[in-house]
């Protein structure tokens, strides 16, 4: 810190009200500064213009009212929230008290859905098992010839029968004398 800076520091402390003993140079600076600071009175702009004063007062008044209004709003909000919670609690309470009577379904939707799905799966499984058993029974009743019969095409079977009849007819004609003469 330079001597000048130290001077300013000590003079500033005196101007702030500290009872320091100043040397001659510091005292001269103090006197000069006091005169300067007094001359700042020229900065004053007089009284506050009426519109500015009125606006400031109005702002204060509105804020004070608004403050109370916001407090009231907050309490009303808290009251409404508490009432809503109470209403929900009462509904839940009364629902728990109400037991399902005979023939009344008192299951939640999710449980019902699970139950239906399980039943559906069981039913499908049972149907598949029954179909397989039926197939097994039919298979056991079929003989080998039945299987062959079922596998041969009906047109093939007709063609085969025609061939047989033609052969029999030719054999009969070779045995006839008229034909031998020609």
């Amino acid at each position: 810190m330079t001597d000048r800076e130290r001077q300013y520091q000590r003079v500033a402390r005196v101007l702030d009200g500290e009872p320091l003993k100043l040397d001659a140079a510091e005292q001269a600076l103090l006197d000069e500064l006091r005169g300067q600071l007094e001359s700042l009175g020229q900065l004053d702009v007089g009284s506050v213009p009426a519109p500015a004063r009125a606006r400031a007062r109005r702002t204060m008044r509105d804020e004070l009212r608004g403050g109370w209004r916001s407090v009231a709003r907050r309490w009303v909000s808290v009251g409404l929230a508490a009432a809503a919670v109470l209403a929900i609690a009462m509904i839940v309470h009364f629902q728990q008290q109400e037991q399902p009577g005979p023939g009344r379904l008192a299951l939640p939707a999710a449980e019902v859905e699970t139950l239906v799905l399980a039943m559906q799966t069981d039913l499908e499984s049972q149907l598949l098992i029954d179909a397989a058993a039926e197939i097994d029974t039919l298979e056991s009743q079929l003989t080998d010839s039945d299987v062959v019969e079922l596998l041969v095409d009906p047109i093939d079977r007709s063609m085969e029968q025609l061939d047989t009849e033609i052969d029999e007819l030719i054999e009969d004609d070779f045995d006839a004398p008229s034909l031998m003469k020609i």
Partner: protein
Amino acid sequence: MDSEPLSNALSAARAGQADGFAALLDAYGRRLYGYFYRAVGNHHDAEDLLGEMSLRLVRNINSYNEQGRLEHWIFRIAANLVRDRFRRKKVRPKLHSLSGGDDEQASPAAMLPARGPDVDNGLMLDETSAQLQRALEKLDETTREMILLRHFGEMPFKEIAELFDCPIGTALAKVHRGIKALRGQMETCDD
């Protein structure tokens, strides 16, 4: 205002009574308005700032802990309002520093528009006052704020130094140089 009526006004204000706030406004309104006017250079913004100050007073009165003087607490709020105003406006006119300060860029006052005397709201500044305003606007922001807070807020140099985060001797040196520059500017205008 004497300390007792001021104390009563403060108590009433803390109790949420409009009269208490009105009394505080009566006590400090003129100095606050003068500070705002000299800081921003026009009555319109000064009126806005006084309105905002009223709002802050109502909202924050219970945060005043009575450790320091009430007026210093009030002028700290006022100084922050002025800074916020310039920060929002982002107006940075080119200024020629008279005080030789080195912080024109960071200074909210450096963003002040250079304006002539404002005669709206029926308040006519005389020519000397108008010259003083023009000279004030040529100071760097920190120096100007320090001078205004010392004069209008009667703020101790210790608090001014805290507010601007500098040694107490530096604060006084800036004010000293600033007032010299103002006087020099005023003498030039007189010639």
